[in-house]
């Protein structure tokens, strides 16, 4: 095989075109996120299989016992499983970040004259796409099984907006882990170790009435419970500003605290 022999054309000096805007840089990374979906469609399988299993399992195995009938339980459980899915799926951007850092890809990005936060914009776009895809699939399955969002289309749109806000907030946790930990699997393990108690000790699966007092106290202040409550309301009989504010409190705090940490970790050299 013959070796590298750059044609004269490449050795002619190629000057840089006009410097693109920060926004244009961010769009390029968004394009990368979309390409990833095209090339790695199997990630969609991981993305939706777990929540589908959860929905079917809880509805048909536990549903009758928990809520009297599978139909009633689905009506209670589906908004919660949407919240759970979005929180669990926000692990992907942290894992992707960890992979990129491990391979030195971010070194190349950081040595380019671009807006330094543009690569994160790509992660955000990837996240939002994942949340929309997973959310749509779960809602569709729910509709097939008999779930009815009484608030109608507007409620569903509001619900998805809330989902994206929740995912955005949870995403920071994994992005920070991704910046700190060089093995993607460890990012996932540590992330889930934190997330599991928060998800299960919430009102996603069951109302806390039958829980012991100390646990009930925790469930009632658990931010995940507030998210699930707001999601139920926004899709169902209508929500209140207080519910929305409580649901958004954690994502807002996470963003305010962890966005600067992310920036510092990334720029630290």
């Amino acid at each position, binding site marked *: *095989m*013959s*070796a*590298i*022999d*750059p*044609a004269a*054309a*490449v*050795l*002619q*000096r*190629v*000057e*840089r*075109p*006009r*410097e*693109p805007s920060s926004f*244009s*840089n961010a769009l*390029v990374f968004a*394009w*990368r996120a979309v*390409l*990833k979906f095209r*090339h*790695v469609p199997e990630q969609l399988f991981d993305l939706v299989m777990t929540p589908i299993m959860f929905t079917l399992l809880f509805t048909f195995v536990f549903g009758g016992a928990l809520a009297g009938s599978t139909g009633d339980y689905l009506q209670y459980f589906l908004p919660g499983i949407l919240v759970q899915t979005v929180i669990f799926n926000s692990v992907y951007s942290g894992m992707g970040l960890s992979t*990129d850092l491990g*391979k*030195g*890809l971010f*070194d*190349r*990005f*950081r*040595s*380019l*004259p*671009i807006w330094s936060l*543009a690569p994160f914009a790509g992660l955000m776009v990837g996240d939002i796409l994942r949340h929309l895809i997973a959310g749509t699939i779960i809602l569709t399955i729910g509709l097939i099984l008999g779930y009815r969002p009484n608030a109608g289309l507007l409620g569903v749109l509001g619900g998805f907006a809330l989902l994206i806000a929740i995912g955005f907030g949870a995403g920071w946790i994994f992005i920070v882990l991704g910046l700190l930990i060089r093995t993607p699997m460890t990012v996932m393990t540590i992330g889930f170790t934190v997330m599991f108690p928060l998800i299960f000790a919430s009102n996603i699966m069951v109302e806390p009435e039958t829980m012991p007092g100390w646990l009930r106290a925790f469930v009632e202040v658990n931010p995940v419970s507030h998210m699930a409550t707001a999601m139920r309301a926004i899709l169902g009989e209508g929500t209140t500003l207080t519910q929305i504010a409580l649901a958004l409190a954690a994502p807002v705090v996470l963003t305010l605290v962890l966005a600067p940490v992310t920036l510092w970790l990334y720029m630290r*050299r």
Partner: protein
Amino acid sequence: MNDQPQFREPLARAEAAPLAISARGLAKQFGDVRAVDGIDLDVPRGMIFAILGPNGAGKTTLMRMLATLAAPDAGTASVMGHDLLREPHAVRAAIAMTGQFASLDEDLTGRENLMLLARLWGFRGREARARADALLAAFELSDAAGKQVKDYSGGMRRRLDIAASLVVTPGVLFLDEPTTGLDPTARQGVWRMIRQLAGSGVTILLTTQYLEEADQLADRIAVIDHGRKIAEGTSRELKAATGSGFLHVALADAGRMAEATAILEQRLGHQVQPSAEGAELSVIAGTAQAANEAIAALLAADIEVTDFSLGQPSLDAVFFALTDRATESEPAKGKRP
């Protein structure tokens, strides 16, 4: 460059300082380890400059600092006339770096990787694709353009990685161990490409642990060890500085290396460097007379010599002589505040 050519001031300054890289006292510490311990560097434009040193000498850290990827703890530097600390963005616009490990997106195709970078540099849709295709053709990757990088061979990855640094012709191209892990043919190819790039005016700073690579390729070599520059010059200057009159001896029986080493050291009063493989020894002999007597002493001890020569030291020998000297001066270094 279209970097505001209408301003006369920066241009005048750039002409006054035709150095591609100028560094003073660069230092970087990781925990207790002084990875880079006060390095000065002046690299003229258009030159191939090699940083030669063993693993862990601080080569990569030095390069990462110059490429704005690591912030120095002390020292100053400018790259293509831009201050490293005050104008990192301008430095980034003037450089490209190919690291030791392929910095590519494995899930994307070769073409998409190059298009991604072309777009980040400011090429738009069709121009970005045209630039990517031109680079793929030049690096003989056109056939693999639509394949995901995870299916590329090591040599193809390295080619794509170097191509990725040439989307826009850089002022300075940093290459961190550009031929590590390549077969001899691929290595020759990378060398040829580096020479061609330098011929077109690109300044190239490369790190290597191969003496042969520095010898073959570089206009100038800085030898670093334990984070310090221990010598700098052309390969000829480095060889000359170590002293001519090197005696190279090849033994018939590798089992008698230790014995032969002892005799040579005792006769000539200099440390003997064994070759990396085979039963070969090199030592500073000073005069031909002394060399003769040393050979005679080996024969007298019944050690069979299959070949010997007196001449310039190899860069290998120079390197060992230099790093050896650096080790000897270690205690003095320890006393520094």
